[in-house]
């Protein structure tokens, strides 16, 4: 059956339908944009007007006051000073935590008995809320950068550890048997079977743990510090500056959002393994 040339009338109908379709989709997109913008504007204006009239501005501050605080922080360089500290601590903790997790999980996952012996202890350690370890790290390492890096690493470690182990354990044993029968050395097996099949799990964990590291660093700063966005937020709260607290929250949110965007390509890289879904411990607190 050969495709018939559409008649001119048919073409016109086709074109019209297509145009209609496109128009509907643009209308839909415009509606969404308008609705979202509308919500933002109404919320901001309502907030600005209500603050100081309906509700005491001490409690809710106001968008203009927050913007003012932000501008002040930016011009005085405070934002950069504190932000750089927090981001550095989070990033170092992220690297430290994930490298340590992979280095410990990898050999442990290869030795089944050793893993099963150690497993209950890891589960116990995992069930200690990372937050609770904060004061211990502060006690051990003071209030500088080190404890924040370690708390961030602690937040990251278990998620990456558990996923790395899961990744190595779900390698189909059939593949291992077949490659062994075909004469693969242990190294060849590692390179061609084990690593490729465990990698998606590790990557998935790495994708979700950068924000976790950020939250770990901020937690450390909350408990005790003299620098960082967490400190800035807490100091604002201590001086009853609601605008300062909200500005700090805003900065932290933007950083976490940016981190999520930054790591999104990792998610795309995992498209071929849709079954990999790290739920456990994906703790964006």
């Amino acid at each position, binding site marked *: 059956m050969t495709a018939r040339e559409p008649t001119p009338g048919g073409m016109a109908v086709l074109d019209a339908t297509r145009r209609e379709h496109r128009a509907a989709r643009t209308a839909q997109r415009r509606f969404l944009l308008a609705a*979202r913008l509308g919500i933002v504007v109404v919320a901001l204006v309502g907030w600005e007007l209500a603050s100081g009239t309906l509700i005491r501005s001490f409690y809710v501050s106001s968008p203009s006051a927050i913007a003012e605080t932000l501008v002040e922080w930016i011009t005085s360089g405070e934002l950069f000073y504190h932000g750089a500290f927090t981001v550095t601590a989070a990033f170092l903790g992220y690297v430290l935590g994930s490298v340590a997790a992979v280095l410990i999980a990898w050999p442990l996952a290869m030795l089944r008995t050793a893993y*099963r012996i150690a497993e209950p*202890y890891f589960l116990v350690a995992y069930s200690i809320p990372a937050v609770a370890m904060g004061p211990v790290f502060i006690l051990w390492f003071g209030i500088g950068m080190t404890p924040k890096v370690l708390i961030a690493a602690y937040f990251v470690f278990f998620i990456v550890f558990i996923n790395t182990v899961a990744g190595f354990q779900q390698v189909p044993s059939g593949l291992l048997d077949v490659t062994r029968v075909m004469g693969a050395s242990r190294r060849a097996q590692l390179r061609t079977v084990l690593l490729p099949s465990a990698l998606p799990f590790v990557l998935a964990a790495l994708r979700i743990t950068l924000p976790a590291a950020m939250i770990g660093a901020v*937690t450390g700063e*909350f408990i005790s510090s003299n620098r960082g966005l967490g400190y800035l937020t807490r100091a*604002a709260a201590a001086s009853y500056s609601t605008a300062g607290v909200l500005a700090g929250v805003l900065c932290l949110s933007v950083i976490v*959002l940016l981190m999520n965007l930054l790591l999104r390509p990792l998610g795309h890289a995992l498209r071929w393994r849709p079954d990999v879904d790290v*739920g456990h411990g994906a703790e*964006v607190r």
Partner: protein
Amino acid sequence: MTVAAAAPDTGRAAAVLASTAAADRRRTQAERAVLWAGTAAFGVAILLFWQFGLGHLVNPRYVSDPATIAARLVELAAEGEILRHVGVTIGEAALGFVIGSTLGLASAFALAQTRRGYAVFEPFLVGFYSIPKIALAPLFILWFGLGTAPKIIMAALLVYFVVFVNTATGIREVQPGLLQVCRVLGASRRDLLLKVTLPSAAPAIVASVRITVTRAIEGALLSEFVASTQGLGYLVARASREFDIATVFAGIVIIAAVVMAANGLLRLLQARLAPWHGGRIHG
């Protein structure tokens, strides 16, 4: 065809089978014994090293030792003070958990009723989701003081988003084919919700509710760290300020026990409510 009909010497076959089964059982038993002994030995080794070795490597003031921590635990229990702290924290976490998960479920179902509504609100939810909730702790303390209210709200907030996101995802992942067939067969909106949407979203909901128990406890603890006058977080934070490392560790032991108990309870509940589900969730 039965085994008895095919094999004339049934007795021998049965004996072989029995001996294989016995050998199998013995092997698994031996394996389990090795694992058990290994696990116990590992634990004892850690404790012994902590008790006798670690103090020589680092200043014992920093790491305390298991015997001191155990003594401190007994002391705390005897004072009765600890029960109050545990009760406060569990109460805050439990209330926050109930409030957060109820609101999460309700708002997810409400929003899922309208596709457009979900589309409009989605970016805001993503934005709120990425707020590090702990950063709000000082704000809650400004708003609600040093009592239990800010702790409950923090716990509820941590629970809310996880339950909301997972419920909304669960609802939207209902197979459209099922909904269409049921609608063709004359199901009302209520039927669709109760007989199709809810059962197919249930596993995700139950699993997300389960993992959020830990988060509720974390929320309560964190708020207690920031400012409080009672609770486990207060106990640990105060001990840490007083450089009383044994009490800090005793507090952490209690916290871990509470978390594990809550998790175990919820896992039992999950096995009852959604036994077909392994528990894969979006954090």
